[in-house]
């Protein structure tokens, strides 16, 4: 189990204990955290699972593959530190990570 915090655009925080191996997207949708739509269920096809990852955490995540990178490039609310939550696997290395959701996924 790894502790992960999701922060809604409004600032509301949700801290979860997540089973390692799940993706951040799965953790959030199973716990019904508002702000992540995940329409394609993690197929990296919809870009509705975007989160912002603070800089000090970015380096601890596996690199974006080109598919994720280009999807993000065309998301309305994306920024330099955006990631697709369905492409981030939870592992002990992420203990304590805090990610923020955009205002909307569409």
């Amino acid at each position, binding site marked *: 189990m790894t502790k992960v915090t999701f922060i809604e655009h409004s600032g509301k925080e949700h801290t979860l204990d997540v089973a390692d191996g799940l993706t951040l997207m799965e953790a959030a949708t199973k716990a019904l955290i508002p702000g992540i739509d995940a*329409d*394609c*269920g993690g*197929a990296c096809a*919809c*870009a509705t699972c975007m989160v912002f990852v603070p800089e000090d955490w970015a380096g601890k995540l596996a690199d974006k593959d080109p*598919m994720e990178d*280009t999807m993000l*490039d*065309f998301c309305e609310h994306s920024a330099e530190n955006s990631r697709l939550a369905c492409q981030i696997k939870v592992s002990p290395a992420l203990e304590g990570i805090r990610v923020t959701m955009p205002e909307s996924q569409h």
Partner: protein
Amino acid sequence: MSMSASASPGIVIIGAGQAASQAVVSLRAEGFEGAITLIGDEAEPPYQRPPLSKKFLAGEIGFDRVELKPAEFYANAHCTLMLGTRVTAIDAKAKTVTTGDGHVIAYTKLLIATGSRVREINVPGFDLKGVHYLRSVGDVHEIQSHFKAGARMVIVGGGYIGLEVAAVAKKNGLDVTVLETANRVLARVVDPIVSRFYERVHAAAGVNICTDVTVVGFEGDADHNVTGVNAGDGKIFPCDFVVVGIGILPNAELAEMAGIEVSNGIVVDECTRTSDPDIFAAGDCTNHPNGVFDRRLRLESVQNAIEQGKTAAAAMTGKDKPYNQVPWFWSDQYDLKLQIAGLSQGYTQAVTRGNPDTDNNFAVFYLKDGVLIAVDAVNRPPEFMMSKMLIAQHAKLDPARLADETINMKEVAKA
């Protein structure tokens, strides 16, 4: 959430799939506090179907990652789940539904989210053992029971599902043949350029793709096991098992029997309202208006199920949140992600960006009198994402700019 006992029977949802699950989430998000009863004929709580022909079929993920919400969710949402239960009739006057085991359940508002079922093949030998379809988790288990390296599999139908199954089976070392009655695969949905590309990719992977082949029957042995597929003119494709993927039919009969308007699906308006003021419908089973394309559609997609599920939840709680989007869809085969936006029907020009003959990434744009109406993008998220926006805007585009790889997708719409 406070659940005050009230006299009102609440909302009943028929079908426990993608649209139904979304509706439960959205009903609570809309602030609905009454009772919700979800009645589904499958044994499992609502799950996603796309992985059934992809990662779940491949055995890469288990059911825990296919189900839409964990079981506790329904309890926490005070939603009564009646699984393994089929609704056999709706009485729109009495406002009740009847289940296969004889229960009569009252509703204040009813959502029909019955999805679709596979179109069955009606040829001699259709009922032989080893002839399978793919719609449910149970179907996957049956198909997987034949997944042994070297096993000979014939897929009837070269649509998305057939081709996705072919890709997974090939990775598992099976001997795979796809029989398609049209003169190319994916004939119903994409331009010949895209069909040719997928034919090339599958052939390179060792899949035997046969177009212009119409199945006339299945051959079996004394134990009633399928042994071959008969394609007429004495042509037999020997096999150990068969997967048939020749399309689906909307589950609209319940609605029709209840006197609700049905025409190639349950007829709904942009807010998922049927011809009965207390009955709504969402997902594969509906025939709905689409404002972007200014015509009625019946779609078979996750997006459609999710968005109509949201709209239905709003409408049932008295809010208008019309569903009006550019349809989109995806398909995963091998390491190729096909993303489709819009509807290409009636296009007057197809413009290719990239080289589908040599590369594993390209896009085909469909224009109608210069206006972008659809895109098929293979491993090309920029083309897909940008087109989705441009289709919604009815953008008139210069074909030369679309084809020009030196122009960034963000710039193609600029004159």
